[in-house]
């Protein structure tokens, strides 16, 4: 069965620290990859996505992610975090199966930035 693993359930960092959140998926075919963010009290919104092309994807608020096909990974990075980055981060994968738009979410990583 297809699945998405986010290794870090809860990450605590100080402001200006560098961030990397891990995401691995299990599916052998073509995939589309997403990172969604849920700020406290708000709904989920798209941070960035990989559909095709350059495996290094840049998103909003200085976030980027790199798709490494050989490692089935799509890790999220930010060189210097801010207190406002405190949120829950979800990695998601859509196996490219045409009409079936099944999107599978990871269990999320709660990021807490200390001021």
């Amino acid at each position: 069965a297809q699945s998405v693993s986010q290794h870090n359930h809860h990450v605590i960092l100080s402001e200006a620290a560098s961030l990397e959140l891990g995401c691995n998926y299990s599916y052998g075919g073509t995939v589309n990859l997403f990172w969604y963010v849920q700020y406290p009290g708000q709904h989920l919104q798209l941070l960035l996505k990989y559909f095709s092309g350059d495996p290094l994807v840049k998103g909003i608020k200085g976030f980027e992610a790199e798709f490494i096909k050989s490692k089935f990974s799509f890790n999220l990075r930010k060189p210097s975090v801010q207190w406002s980055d405190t949120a829950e981060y979800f990695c998601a994968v859509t196996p490219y199966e045409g009409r079936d738009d099944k999107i599978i979410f990871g269990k999320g990583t709660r990021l807490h930035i200390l001021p």
Partner: protein
Amino acid sequence: DTAVSQTPKYLVTQMGNDKSIKCEQNLGHDTMYWYKQDSKKFLKIMFSYNNKELIINETVPNRFSPKSPDKAHLNLHINSLELGDSAVYFCASSQEGSSSGGEQFFGPGTRLTVL
């Protein structure tokens, strides 16, 4: 303007009752979804509709029945509520499917508590 709206925001009810959650999107999207987010923040897709047609129907109890009167609305009706149904339910919509790289726009969620 709210893109994806859900009502009610909070729903507290007794076991065995029947309840509905409404979702509306004003983005003109063709596809709408229902997700369930449990207490551990695990987000799982339940249903998706494309132009009023059911596309995805994950393994959910048949007490859950989605209804799409038009492509801007996707309501979720739940019969004979059980304690395990307590969760946050998110509605989402997208113009393109996730397998085409489409971004999903999420509603604010409905927190359902079954007593």
